[in-house]
C-alpha cells in the first residue's frame, strides 16, 4: 500500500472539510473493495478520510412511504432490518446475498454504489427499485447515478449520505453468483410500482442497466411468462473466464424470470 495520511472525522461537516482541503483525498466506507484495491497499489491517495465514526450516516428508517438507508449502513444491518424486511423484502434478500458474512458485517450501501463495481449487487437494487441517492449537495435519481465502469455522477469530494427507496407493490431479486467471489455473474432486480415495471441488470455490462423491452412486457403482464421470447442481445456484454457474452445474455433472461417469480412469491 502506498502511504497516506489518515483522518477519522466524527461529523459529515468535518469529513467534507477534510476532503475539500485535500488535493488527493478519498473517503473510506466499509473498505471491502477499497482496502484490497489500495493494498494491490491499484488505488492510492494522499488523504484517506475514514467515514466509520460518523454516526449520522448510518441507520434505517421508514418515512413518507420510503425506506431511507444511511450511506454507512452495513449490509448485515439491511439484511436483518425489520423495516426493510417488511417493506421491501427483496432488498433485504439482496443485502443478504452480498459476499460473505465477514464482508456483510463491514461493507456499506454507500461504499458499494460509489465504488460502482460492474458486478456489485446494490447498483441493481438502487436502479431496479427507482431509488434516489442523496448526497451532501443534492439528490440524484438512480437513472442518472451510475455512468460507467466504476464511474458515477458524483463530483470531486461529493459524499453520498443516504439512499431513499420507494416502497414498491412487488419486487424480486435473483442472482447467479460467481462460485468463488459471490460477485454477480448476472443478477436482476425487478419491481412493479404504479403500473410501471423496472428491470435492472448488474454484472452484464460496464455498469448496471435497465432492460426496456422486459419492463414493457412486465408492465402489461407481471408474470415470468411475459418475458418469453424476449432475447437480450449479447453484443456489448461482459465476457470473462466465468461466462462468455452469449451465456451472459442467456442469463439475463433466466435471472429476470427468476426475479419475477421471486417477486410474486413474496
Amino acid at each position, binding site marked *: *500500500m502506498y502511504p*497516506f*495520511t489518515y483522518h*477519522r472525522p466524527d461529523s459529515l461537516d468535518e469529513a467534507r472539510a477534510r476532503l475539500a482541503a485535500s488535493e488527493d483525498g478519498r473517503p473510506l466506507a466499509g*473498505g*471491502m473493495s477499497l*482496502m484490497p484495491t489500495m493494498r494491490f497499489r491499484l488505488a492510492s491517495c494522499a488523504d*484517506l478520510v475514514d467515514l466509520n465514526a460518523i454516526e449520522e450516516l448510518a441507520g434505517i428508517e421508514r418515512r413518507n412511504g420510503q425506506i431511507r438507508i444511511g450511506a454507512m449502513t452495513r449490509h448485515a444491518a439491511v439484511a436483518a432490518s425489520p423495516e426493510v424486511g417488511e417493506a421491501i423484502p427483496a432488498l433485504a434478500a439482496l443485502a443478504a446475498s452480498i459476499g460473505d*458474512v465477514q464482508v456483510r458485517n463491514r461493507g456499506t450501501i454507500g461504499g458499494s454504489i460509489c465504488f460502482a463495481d460492474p458486478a456489485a449487487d446494490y447498483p441493481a437494487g438502487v436502479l431496479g427499485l427507482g431509488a434516489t441517492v442523496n448526497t451532501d449537495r443534492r439528490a440524484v435519481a438512480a437513472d442518472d447515478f451510475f455512468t460507467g465502469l466504476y464511474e458515477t455522477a458524483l463530483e470531486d469530494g461529493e459524499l453520498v449520505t443516504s439512499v431513499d427507496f420507494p416502497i414498491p407493490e412487488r419486487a424480486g431479486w435473483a442472482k447467479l453468483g460467481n462460485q468463488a467471489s459471490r460477485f454477480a455473474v448476472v443478477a436482476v432486480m425487478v419491481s412493479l410500482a404504479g403500473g410501471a415495471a423496472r428491470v435492472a441488470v448488474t454484472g452484464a455490462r460496464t455498469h448496471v442497466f435497465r432492460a426496456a423491452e422486459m419492463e414493457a412486457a412486465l408492465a402489461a403482464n407481471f408474470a415470468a411468462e411475459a418475458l418469453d421470447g424476449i432475447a437480450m442481445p449479447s453484443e456489448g456484454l461482459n465476457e470473462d473466464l466465468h461466462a462468455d457474452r452469449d451465456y451472459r445474455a442467456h442469463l439475463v433472461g433466466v435471472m429476470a424470470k427468476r426475479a419475477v417469480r421471486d417477486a410474486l412469491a413474496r
Partner: protein
Amino acid sequence: MAQVSVSFTVNGREVTATVDPRTLLVHFLREELKLTGTHVGCDTSQCGACTVHLDGRPAKSCALLAVQLEGCAITTIEGVAGADGMHPMQSAFKEHHGLQCGFCTPGMVMMGIDIASRHDAPSEETIRSELEGNLCRCTGYHNIVRSIAAGAQSMRG
C-alpha cells in the same frame, strides 16, 4: 507520513500503539503483538484465514487498518480458550478432525463460534452457507461442518 496513535483491546487486554496508517490489522496482530494464530492466507480478502471478531462480529483483519480500531474490542483465536482449557469449538474441531494442514483453522473456529452464537442448532445447510467466506484447501469441508455443528451443540451446553 504521520504515525498515528491508536488504542483498542485485544483479547481483553488494552493495547496502545503508534502505527503507520497503512498497517493492516492482521499485520499489527502478527508482527507487533506476536499473535500469529491469525493467518494471512490469500492476501485478496477471500479466504477468511485472518478472521477475527471485531466488537463481537467476524471480520477479515486483512481488510481493516489498525488505525481504524480506536476504542474497539478485538478477539483473536488466542483469546477464545478459557482458564480450564480449549473453547468448546476448538475441542469439537479436535474431536471431529475438522482440520488437516490447519492453516485455515483459526478463521474456521472464529467463524464457527459466530455461527453458533447466531443460530440455534445450525443445520448443515446453514453452516455451509455461513462458511462462504472461509476457504479450506484440504478437508473438503465435511469435517469442518461436522465440527461446527458439534461445537455449537456443546456451546449450548
